[in-house]
């Protein structure tokens, strides 16, 4: 996950989470407030209704108590022969405009009088709603009881029901009565009747209706919420990208420098804060690196230069001792490189061979002058001494770890080996001879034959070419001979360029 993405996500989280939390709390409290308001109003309505019902029930009870104490109750003794009690009960029932009936029961439970005349002489069937004892005017013992059946339909006239809001009755056991319809989801408030503790009046309101305001604007609330969320997210995104912009610039520049290896590039951030300091430090660092790198490159070049010069000088020393002209070394070097390139070595290795080949005769500095500069032909002993120069040169150079000197050691050791194995000092043949040795052998002989020496005159070109053709596969690597003849013009050009200047 990139720094940019991380920062943006962090900002989004930091801004959106509190927003969502706040909105949730605000929404919830709004809902709670609405709920409180609605239920408060329902409670008020319910309380008024329940009070009315309670009042009515109280009236009923009071009337019954009054009746139970009246004179006519003495008619219990005459089995209400004159229907005085029954008529009074019927009058009361009519007066109260109620459903249900009054019954006057003897202590044995037989109905003596009732507003329902047909029930007289029977026993009461349903459970009475209210019962009060009946006394005669001359006895302290209850002579019976006055009961009333009060069907719940009586409550209906106290219920002002609407489509969305209605009352119903809940019994103590949880069963309900007079419930007009079932709402899918509803708010309920309930209150127990004081004068009928078994009954609880419940006022129920359809939730959709109660929360109609909330539902009406719900879509707008949600849209507003989402809009706010998007706005905050955008702001967070913008701030985050703006904040990390300099960091991204720095990072991009660093990446670019790594890719192009161009240490002259700078970051352009003009700021007064830490990021500005960072970019300044970055620039200083890159600048320093650039300078250090240049210095290293310069030093390297100098080292290589010195190496080359040392090698060249060393080669020259060998040559100068044998009174061979200095240009011989240069020509051999050029020939060697040319041959190496055409042979298939790469540019770097060819260049190295060019620098190493001048040292092929370095061993000669250890050859006594008497032998080295003896005019005329060597005798057996002198030849043997002279031939040691290859091994001597190799011994001088072999201890170095530097590839250039290693190459020079090989060149010195093997430049007198012959392709057919008749050379010295080890008599190697063909591929056993290192390619450096084979190349330098050819280059050295070509130049030696073509130059004047103390002991001979320079050969004619034809004679040299004839010899080369003859020595192809014998002295020389046939492949190199082919290369030589294929590119003869280039070799001759080199010879012309570095021609010896004769003082004579």
């Amino acid at each position, binding site marked *: 996950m990139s720094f940019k993405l991380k920062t943006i996500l962090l900002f989004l989280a930091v801004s959106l989470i509190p927003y969502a939390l706040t909105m949730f709390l605000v929404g919830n409290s709004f809902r709670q407030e609405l709920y409180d308001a609605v239920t408060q109003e329902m409670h008020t309505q319910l309380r008024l209704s329940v009070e009315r019902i309670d009042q009515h029930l109280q009236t009923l009870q009071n009337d019954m108590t009054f009746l139970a104490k009246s*004179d006519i109750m*003495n*008619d219990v*003794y*005459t*089995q209400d*022969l*004159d229907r*005085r009690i029954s008529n009074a009960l019927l009058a009361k029932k009519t007066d109260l405009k109620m459903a249900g009936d009054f019954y006057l029961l003897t202590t044995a439970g037989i109905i003596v009088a009732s507003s329902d005349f047909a029930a007289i002489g029977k026993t009461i069937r349903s459970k009475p709603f209210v019962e009060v004892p009946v006394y005669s*005017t*001359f006895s302290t013992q209850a002579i019976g009881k006055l009961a009333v059946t009060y069907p719940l339909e009586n409550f209906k006239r106290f219920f002002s029901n609407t489509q969305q809001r209605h009352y119903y009755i809940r019994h103590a056991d949880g069963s309900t009565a007079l419930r007009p319809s079932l709402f899918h989801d509803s708010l309920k408030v309930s209150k127990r009747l004081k004068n009928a503790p078994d009954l609880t009046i419940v006022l129920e309101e359809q939730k959709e209706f109660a929360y109609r305001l909330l539902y009406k604007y719900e879509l707008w609330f949600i849209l507003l919420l989402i809009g706010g969320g998007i706005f905050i997210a955008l702001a967070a995104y913008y701030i985050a990208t703006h904040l990390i912009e300099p960091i991204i610039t720095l990072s991009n520049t660093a990446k670019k420098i790594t890719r192009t290896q161009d240490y002259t590039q700078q970051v352009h951030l003009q700021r007064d804060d830490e990021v500005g300091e960072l970019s300044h430090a970055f620039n200083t660092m890159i600048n320093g690196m650039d300078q250090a790198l240049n210095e290293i490159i310069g030093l390297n070049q100098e080292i290589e230069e010195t190496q080359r010069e040392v090698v060249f000088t060393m080669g020259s020393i060998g040559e100068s001792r044998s009174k061979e002209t200095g240009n011989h070394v240069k020509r051999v070097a050029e020939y060697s490189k040319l041959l190496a390139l055409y042979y298939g070595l790469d540019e770097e290795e060819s260049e190295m061979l060019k620098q190493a080949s001048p040292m092929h005769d370095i061993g000669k500095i250890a050859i006594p002058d008497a032998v080295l500069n003896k005019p005329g032909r060597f005798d057996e002993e002198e030849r043997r001494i002279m031939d040691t120069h290859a091994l001597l040169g190799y011994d001088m150079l072999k201890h170095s770890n530097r590839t250039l000197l290693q190459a020079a050691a090989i060149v010195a050791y093997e430049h007198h080996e012959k392709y057919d194995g008749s050379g010295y000092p080890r008599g190697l043949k063909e591929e056993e001879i290192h390619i450096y040795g084979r190349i330098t052998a050819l280059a050295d002989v070509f130049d030696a034959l073509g130059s004047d020496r103390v002991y001979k005159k320079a050969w004619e070109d034809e004679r040299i070419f004839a010899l080369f053709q003859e020595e192809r596969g014998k002295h020389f690597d046939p492949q190199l001979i082919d290369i030589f003849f294929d590119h003869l013009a280039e070799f001759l050009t080199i010879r012309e360029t570095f021609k010896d200047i004769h003082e004579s």
Partner: protein
Amino acid sequence: MKQIALLCLLCLALSASEYSVVISKKIMISAVTAQQIRDIFLMKRHSLGNQKVIPVNLLGQDISRITFENEILKMDRDHLNAYWIKQHFQGITPPITQSSYDSVKMFVQNVEGAIGYIPSSMVDNGVKVIHEF
């Protein structure tokens, strides 16, 4: 003369025994004076000996009640009203009432100590006559 006297007595008896004051058979009292009945119905006495008594009046302007008031209570309606208004302030209310002879009779039969008056022709085994007028 004796016959005439007997006849007169019979006539008197016939005319006098038009109504009977009755009481529950269970009660041991056999005869009560008119004065005692008067006191009971005016709520001046509430017992006969050890027996608590409950007077039962007939409701309304029945002829028997008028006769009873004239013969036994010896007060006419105005006097009686004045009397009960006076008593009312002392917390004494008139006797309970029944609206028919049948119910008076039944009440007397069923309530121990209840005293009521019914036509003599209605007297049967259920009640005991303690006075006639």
